[in-house]
């Protein structure tokens, strides 16, 4: 008995009779499609979605509840997961769904997911166009390898999902847009005293070259781009799942939609849907009590005794909640840490940083002598907010209106 079969056996026993009648269950039964439209191999995106799937304002009604009975009627679909410029957190976040990972195995053959299964690029290249039913791409596009793989996966996949904050808006790697490649290379390889490479070669720094002539032949490394891009700057993206990494609830909604489609022929959500997230801000689902107090001093959580029930902004901690999309279940604020904004801007705005800037500026009270104080005093008050660009645009800089640093050239 294989390892997976053993785990499954155990799970079925534990759940007992409840598992008999059905295997996957959604919150609401999914309307089955006519028999002739039953999915065969690779399902296609359906143009007209059923109304229960259209809304992006609430979490999708279909949510994965239990493990599946076996392969889908039309045979297993193909699944791939790959990373661009990211930390790898998204790549393993799929495992946060615990035993439901078996669902993925029942439903799909994992053809390419380097962190979990052995797959080579040449295997991927050998597939037909559109043969992979669904590909999750995480990470930003920062070098030529990221771009090549993203384009290849787009070609081979029917559904391509931008998975995680980096794929959606460039994420934290996007902050590199405040510098250019030369500055970054120079800093990392010649000016960082804690780097071993710096200590060893201080007098003759070694900077990686794209092409290197080794005795065995010519070696290449990918070209680092000046500007970090989001996945949809490079290819067409079907769905988005935000988060750093996407939270369990969002992944379940994504898998639920897939399972409904693959097993019951239910239509997929409309193209471009942000899956597993709400339209409103995180404050809507954060349990902390907000009194809209004014603050005079910005603090970090370690500097004060954080009240477990009070709004963090009321306590002087800058929390990205007011400018961030809900859907994650507010795990950070519940643990006493401010929201970092990884679910991106809310449905009504395009600039997360700009809406956060407005929220923070309004935190400071209008003083009794406000009519009389001069501009320098205002600058003093506002300069308590350190690195506003890095803080407010932590995940969305590469997709912001300005996108990257500019250089003033001066007038003539």
């Amino acid at each position, binding site marked *: 008995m294989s390892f997976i079969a053993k785990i499954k056996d155990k799970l079925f026993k534990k759940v007992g009779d409840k598992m008999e009648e059905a295997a996957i269950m959604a919150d609401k039964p999914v309307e089955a499609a006519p028999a002739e439209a039953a999915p065969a191999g690779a399902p296609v995106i359906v143009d007209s979605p059923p109304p229960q799937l259209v809304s992006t304002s609430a979490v999708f009604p279909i949510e994965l509840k239990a493990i599946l009975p076996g392969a889908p009627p039309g045979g297993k679909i193909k699944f791939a997961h790959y990373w661009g410029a990211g930390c790898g957190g998204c790549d393993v976040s799929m495992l946060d769904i615990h035993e439901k990972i078996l669902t993925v195995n029942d439903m799909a053959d994992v053809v390419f997911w380097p962190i979990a299964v052995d797959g080579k690029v040449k295997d991927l290249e050998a597939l037909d166009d559109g043969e992979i039913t669904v590909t999750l791409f995480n990470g930003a596009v920062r070098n030529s390898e990221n771009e090549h793989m993203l384009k290849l996966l787009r070609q081979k996949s029917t559904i391509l999902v931008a998975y995680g904050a980096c794929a959606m808006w460039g994420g934290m790697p996007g902050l590199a847009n405040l510098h250019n490649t030369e500055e970054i290379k120079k800093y990392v390889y010649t000016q960082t005293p804690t780097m071993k490479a710096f200590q060893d070669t201080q007098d003759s720094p070694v900077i990686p070259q794209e092409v290197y002539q080794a005795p065995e032949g010519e070696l290449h490394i990918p070209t680092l781009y000046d500007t970090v891009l989001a996945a949809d700057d490079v290819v067409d993206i079907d769905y988005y799942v935000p988060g750093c990494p996407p939270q369990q609830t969002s992944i379940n909604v994504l898998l639920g939609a897939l399972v409904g489609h693959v097993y019951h022929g239910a239509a997929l959500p409309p193209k471009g849907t942000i899956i597993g997230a709400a339209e409103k801000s995180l404050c809507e689902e954060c349990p902390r009590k907000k009194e809209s107090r004014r603050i005079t001093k910005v603090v970090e959580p370690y500097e004060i005794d954080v009240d477990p029930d009070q709004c963090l902004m009321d306590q002087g901690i800058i929390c990205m909640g007011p400018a961030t999309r809900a859907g994650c279940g507010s795990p950070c604020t519940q643990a006493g840490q401010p929201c970092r904004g990884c679910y991106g801007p809310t449905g009504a705005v395009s600039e997360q940083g700009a809406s956060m800037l407005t929220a923070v*500026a309004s935190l400071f009270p209008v003083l009794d002598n406000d009519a009389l104080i001069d501009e320098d005093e205002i600058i003093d*008050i*506002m300069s308590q907010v350190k690195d*506003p*660009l*890095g803080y407010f645009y932590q995940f969305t800089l590469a997709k*912001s209106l300005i996108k990257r640093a500019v250089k003033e050239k001066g*007038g003539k």
Partner: protein
Amino acid sequence: MSEFDPKIIAFCCNWCSYAGADGAGVARLQMPTNFRIIRTMCSARVDPEHILRSLAKGADGVIVLGCHPADCHYIGGNYRARRRMALLRFVLEEYGFDPKRLKLEWVSASEGEKFQKTMTEFIDDIKGLGPNPIKEGA
């Protein structure tokens, strides 16, 4: 190359500076014509996103004109705007813009002359700074 002809976006509060601009026009005060006025109900109605979008689309400078302190039609809108612009200027500086490309000034409904003076000075400042660096080939 011809002389640099800046494009300025001016956000004017409905209750004071928009009327001030009107007054400047009625009084036939002479000033450069490089600016486009967008009327808002209050200087606090100007979202940082509006300013960033103006710059992203190639405006060389953005000026926000509101009521004098203690004069706001909505009591405290101008104080809010003042804090917001101060913070936004830090953001612009981090992006690499000269923060002088964003200006906040108070012009009341009766100050046509101040409107003329403010706009003339701001346009001169922007001419000194040169074109918006976000523009291709600028």
